[in-house]
């Protein structure tokens, strides 16, 4: 799948994002990395121009609760409701529900084996093929973890 890995907001640490990007590449995906400090509208434009099927958002700054829902809303408004969104980084347990409600389908914290992310994408692709809700604009009942 074509996957955009993005770093939203003011956060200069992308070791995690690069590890994920590398793991997805080795799993046979085409990975586009945005680089650091992207605004929600930058990210939505990149997802559109690259015609990505999946968006992975990595954030360590603590701003996930405002940035990620904003990005999900922008995606829906831009007609990109089919895009599958997952998140990673430092995201406290109490914020998971908020992210799932905004359209995120999986959240991967520190220590996650990279194979988990690949398993998630495999499942996500299966759901997409079977027309089960999985995009950011679909019904939001299902999430991976």
């Amino acid at each position, binding site marked *: 799948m074509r996957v955009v890995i993005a770093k939203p907001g003011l956060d200069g640490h992308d070791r995690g994002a690069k590890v994920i*990007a*590398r793991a*997805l*590449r*080795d*799993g*046979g*995906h*085409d*990975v*586009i*990395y*945005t*680089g650091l400090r992207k*605004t929600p*509208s*930058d990210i939505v434009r*990149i997802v*559109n*121009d*690259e*015609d990505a099927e999946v968006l992975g958002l990595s954030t360590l700054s603590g701003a996930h609760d405002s940035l990620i829902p904003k990005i999900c809303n922008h995606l829906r408004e*831009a*007609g*990109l409701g089919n895009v599958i969104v997952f998140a990673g980084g430092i995201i406290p347990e109490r914020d998971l529900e908020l992210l799932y409600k905004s359209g995120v389908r999986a959240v991967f914290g520190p220590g996650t084996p990279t194979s988990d992310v690949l398993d998630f994408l495999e499942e996500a692709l299966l759901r997409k093929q079977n027309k089960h809700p999985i995009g950011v604009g679909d019904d939001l009942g299902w999430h991976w973890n």
Partner: protein
Amino acid sequence: MALELSNINELLELAISGDRRSLSRLMTKIAESPQIPKFHSESSWTLGVTGPPGAGKSTLIGQMVKHWVTAGESVAVLALDPTSPISGGSFLADRIRMEGDDLGETVFVRSIASGNIPGGISPYIWSMCQALSLCGWTRIVVETVGTGQSEFRIAALVDRLLLVDGPDRGDIIQAEKAGILELADVIAINKSDLPRAVSSAQSIRTSLALSGDDSREVLLVSALEGVGVEKLISTIESCEPRSERNEMIMRERLISEWDSLLVTHSEIDEIIAKLCIGSITVNEAIQILSSSIVQSGE
């Protein structure tokens, strides 16, 4: 197939009307179509940018894009990066170097995995360029994967070619070698802020002069500091497509179309399997593939 084509034409119309979502979908459709849709634009302006890995192609394109946008052009970039021969995946990171500022609506960047295409560049790139031109993009740039001396397929697909190299890339013997140097319209030695850039540029100028060719400029630029970019752009803008290159271009275009017919052939996997077990020879494989390509009227 007919449905597919009407779908593509519909996307093209929406993209021409300015719908960016359709433009992006159109690029994907062109890449995925089993038969490459052919578009033709009367006024396309295309530039290929090639050179070895790490020469600074993406960073330099980023600088050029800024200049063009300021001058009121709308710029589309097709950036190729390699596909892993092991996993089939890719890490497409050219756009990081081009996205210093928010580029906005007048810039379109699409990353493309090179795939297992001979020469590293698929003939559908040409169709993408034509479609982008029809949609009103006035400067269309194709960045190749980092190349060696012998990958010049790109020359077949663009109107003008910029070769970017760095300083300290060997001596005059390197510059004497035939290949991409002969096809480039403009040659830029990037990283002019580093030592030896001047002598690298001089080596190449000497080499060109020895072959009686002093029509081409060898420019020093620093993509990092933005030095020399204006001169580079004006040189590229004013270069006339060279007529003596036409034969080479047609040759490359022919080979590239043939390659693509071959690699997208419906029986190719089957034939490779037969080759692996030795039930046919390579010559027989060529016979089978080429005769069915001829029969299908391609």
